[in-house]
């Protein structure tokens, strides 16, 4: 039921958007995330955008994980 891969918003028409994911396009609702803009990466659930994926945070969690490992290795 759930698509866990972010899709890219390529067009917006009022409360509907067109998103693209792996070459497929789909019409999705924006009611739950009205601030969505063209070019955003979004999580879609049951035909609606539920969240915009924050690329800054995406990079941060990478750094966080590397930290975690470093920390763990230091304890040896």
């Amino acid at each position, binding site marked *: 039921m759930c698509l866990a891969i972010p899709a890219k918003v390529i067009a917006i028409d009022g409360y*509907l958007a067109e998103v693209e*994911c792996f070459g497929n396009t789909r019409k999705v609702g924006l*009611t*739950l995330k009205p601030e969505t803009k063209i070019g955003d990466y979004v*999580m879609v659930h*049951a035909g609606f955008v539920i*969240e915009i994926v*924050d690329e800054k945070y995406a990079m941060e969690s990478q750094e*966080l994980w590397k930290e975690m490992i470093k920390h763990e*290795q230091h304890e040896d």
Partner: protein
Amino acid sequence: MSSMKTNVYRDPVLGKELIQAIKKQAKIFQEKNGRKVNLMEVCGTHTVSVSKAGLRDVFRDDIELISGPGCPVCVTSHEDIDYMIELAKQPEVIICTFGDMMRVPGSHSSLAEEKANGHDIRVLYSPLEALDIAEEQPDKKVIFLAVGFETTTPAIAATIDMAEKREIDNYYVFTVHKICPPVVELLFNDPKLKIDGLLLPGHVSAIVGRKALDFIATEFKVPSSIAGFEPLDVLAGMYDIIRMLNQGEAKVTNQYLRVVTEEGNKAALDMIAKYFEAASSNWRGIGSIEGSGLVLKPEYQKYDARNLYDITIPESSNTRGCRCGEVLSGHIKPTDCGHFGRSCTPVSPVGPCMVSYEGTCATYFKYERKV
């Protein structure tokens, strides 16, 4: 290529290092407690990620990974499936549903069988399409089968909102929505399970926000982590939990920062609050749990498909002895069920856990069978 690079979350080097870090913490736990650590993945999509990445096998000696009641298709009760089937038989009705629901066995039949019998049942990608169908066919009653957790409920609420705005008055929903906290509480209180930590669903958390899940740590003292669905997301969440356990800490951490915020999605939460209220709900194989469902508020009853017909369903039963209830509540593994892989396969499923893409039995059948 315009798809965002998701493969950074599959980085094999980082993955291996994380696995080592987790194993090290898991050993510490085992030495301290004389047993393996029990982690439950609540969400069906996590069950798939964990199995697909081979993590159950990787951690065979260190961690007991228990699959929880996280697939909305699987937890829908017999009675509710039976009701949907009776609805589908009404003359002027068009039933719209997500694909997974089609083959879920009711007591006597399934939606797929009823479609074969000539009833108008359509598989949709989105409930938005159901609105279009309703608009195009005003002489029909278009009913969307609204299944799902906090992630799906706001989407369904949004379609009612749109139906109101577009003045579509032949669109209805049959709600079997469920919410996660009450069932989580039930599992914690089960002395047989001994859950040490929870891997929390990324998308439910995107809606409700990290803070709303703090009760798991404060009330139950169980460390938990919100995780995304890529292998590294899952590993990071597992590491957090075991480390907290070893340090005697209990918090709800967020390892899905790129999607989950502290407060959640306000517009979605407002949508739920506008149209829905809590009610008791019936979980397959588990039974009725108070406050674990969401139903339309009294002022929106005209959208509720339950009010359309006077339907009495024939006696509901689990005639074929499917043990989904025990699988869903983490009491047995799919392989402990006598039907598994013999009389029950994805091609001819006995229970919903073998039907749904995120079903625990289907996942084990696909990825955990040693041939």
